[in-house]
């Protein structure tokens, strides 16, 4: 037998699971998942992003999706962050570790992790 409080706990636990189905959040984090991206290790990056977004309870705000080849194969794995009315941010040569930091600092707190961006890499 469940109490109302237990019922609410189930709802909160399950909410992330179904919020994905109400459409995209206001921030989109897109991982390049073409052959070049996968070969360079995009899959662990994608998994880390998904896990972290869920852990930080950002499900309603952020949707993590994939895309094909962005055309900068040498910089893969690439993660692009789109937010309405803001300039697109491109992170390059990502790893699972870097992805977790991006989730925490950028997706959650809104601070761009400059050192991982394409601008920093090209200097």
């Amino acid at each position, binding site marked *: 037998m469940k109490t*109302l409080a237990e019922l609410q706990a189930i*709802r909160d636990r399950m909410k992330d699971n179904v919020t994905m189905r109400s459409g995209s959040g206001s921030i989109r984090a897109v991982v390049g998942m073409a052959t070049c991206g996968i070969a360079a290790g995009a899959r662990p990056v994608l998994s880390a992003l*998904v896990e972290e977004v869920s852990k930080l309870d950002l499900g309603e705000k952020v949707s993590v999706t*994939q895309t094909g080849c962005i055309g900068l194969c040498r910089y893969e794995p690439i993660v692009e962050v789109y937010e309405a009315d803001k300039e697109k941010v491109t992170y390059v040569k990502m790893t699972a570790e870097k992805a977790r930091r991006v989730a925490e600092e950028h997706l959650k707190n809104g601070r761009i992790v400059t050192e991982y961006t394409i601008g920093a890499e090209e200097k």
Partner: protein
Amino acid sequence: MYRSHVLICGGTGCTSSGSQKVRERLAEELKAKGLENEIKIVQTGCFGLCALGPVMIVYPEGTFYSRVTENDIPEIVEEHLLKGRIVTRLEYKEGAEITEPGKNVSLNDTNFYKSQLRVALRNCGVINPENIDEYIARDGYMALGKVLTEMKPEDVIQVLLDSGLRGRGGAGFPTGMKWKFARAYDNDQKYVCCNADEGDPGAFMDRSVLEGDPHVVLEAMTIAGYTIGASQGYIYVRAEYPIAVKRLQIAIKQAREYGLLGDNILGTGFKFDIDLRLGAGAFVCGEETALMTSIEGNRGEPRPRPPFPAEKGLFQKPSILNNVETWANIPQIILKGADWFASMGTEKSKGTKVFALGGKITHTGLVEIPMGTPLRKVIEEIGGGIPNGKKFKAAQTGGPSGGCIPAEHFDVPIDYDNLIAIGSMMGSGGLIVMDEDNCMVDIAKFFLQFTVDESCGKCTPCRIGTKRLLEMLEKITKGQGTLEDLDKMEELCYYIKANALCGLGQTAPNPVLSTLRYFRDEYIAHVVDKRCPAGVCKHLLKFVVNKEKCIGCGLCMRNCPANAITRTDYIAPGHKLASVEIDPEKCVKCGVCMGNCKFKAISKQ
């Protein structure tokens, strides 16, 4: 945690077009690619676009794929799920503006979905109906929690009264009033019943709710139990709905495990349980007193009212009976309030209504629209119009109890009172569209045939009256009717309406009356000119050969099942072989010759 959810419709429509095979193949492909822990497959209820099934939606992008076959699965997995590239050839995007190629189309921008408002269907096509946790995640059972912990039964009734909710089964009786009456009668035992005996030809709204969101019915019935003081509920569901029955059984089991049905619900001491009763397919059992008689284990026959079920219903105890769609609205009204519900719809018809679109319409399927939406919008915009460039002739609402809406009322806002005013009725929500190829006399005959078959035989006006009506209609479609018959039919219709025992008989003449009202000229064509303008009534048809066009190939002769076609002596100028002719005495009017003729030499008159 899954990065993507693939929702596949598991409703009856998509199941019959092969969604189960699609689902199995997808599971295999995901496993082969090692994606089974990243991508979740969810079997849901109906999305509504049954004509384009099997349908599938991929989140988080929200890409909607239609007419997906097993063979499309490897491409979807490789391209979309692995590489993130949408398979545009399968994407449904009708009516939506494509801003950049390859960019995802939002479902809510398509013609089919953009004017819809989903209240009763809010979870259909969104959650897995066999998983109670997904229902809870969408605020499921929160309304029950609120009712049991914060509200008195009187409060619940007041909210329903204020919301303006009316029964969605067809008659449109205010739900709050029904509950108020049942609460007022004192008794040691009362019952809550759900009418899921959806029997109108072409209607499948209730089936879709039960298949897509069974818990919402359980939750609402439990709320009703608390409100009127009942401890037992029954869902009377057709045995012809195997998927709905299965999902209800699963839902009841899960709800009992969670203590949401049973002795001490949510620890409040309130006791309520629900059992299923399967109907054997008699249309009359959708009538409330017949339904209750059937649950009692007797032959499903209605009995006179009063006493109304609120006083003496199931097992002679105070009972309420509501339709599936009515139940599906209630938890939302409790959570969001009466004002929210009353803000939708028209003055006397609040909220939304689910319609099952069928007949001559492009998007056969299920739609939910705010009350007051014009018929034109439902048919032309949401329904995608009438296929093959044909012209709209009429729409039938309310099935065999309702009537037709002709083109002159195409812009009427759909609500309970407007439909009654133009001689039809809301009914449970079947909406059958007819075009210029439909004969209205034949349509009336079809519905009368149905009521004659389904009349339980208890009262004379219905048992004999509908039979006599049908005989007169048959006479007319055979070209043997007289103008006097039309007047006699009308008189008999009013007699049956006034004297039949239950709703089945009282409404059975409606299809005849409304076609007589709007399409009397078609009846007159049958009676006076012995002609069927739409070319449907076989006895009035004649197939003729245009001897100048006929080249004498003989294809029609070889294919005629009645050997009615013979060669003549006449050879048309420019042709080598003699033309043929059809013997009207032998012709069975199957139309095979006309369909086969490559030279358009055969026509029907």
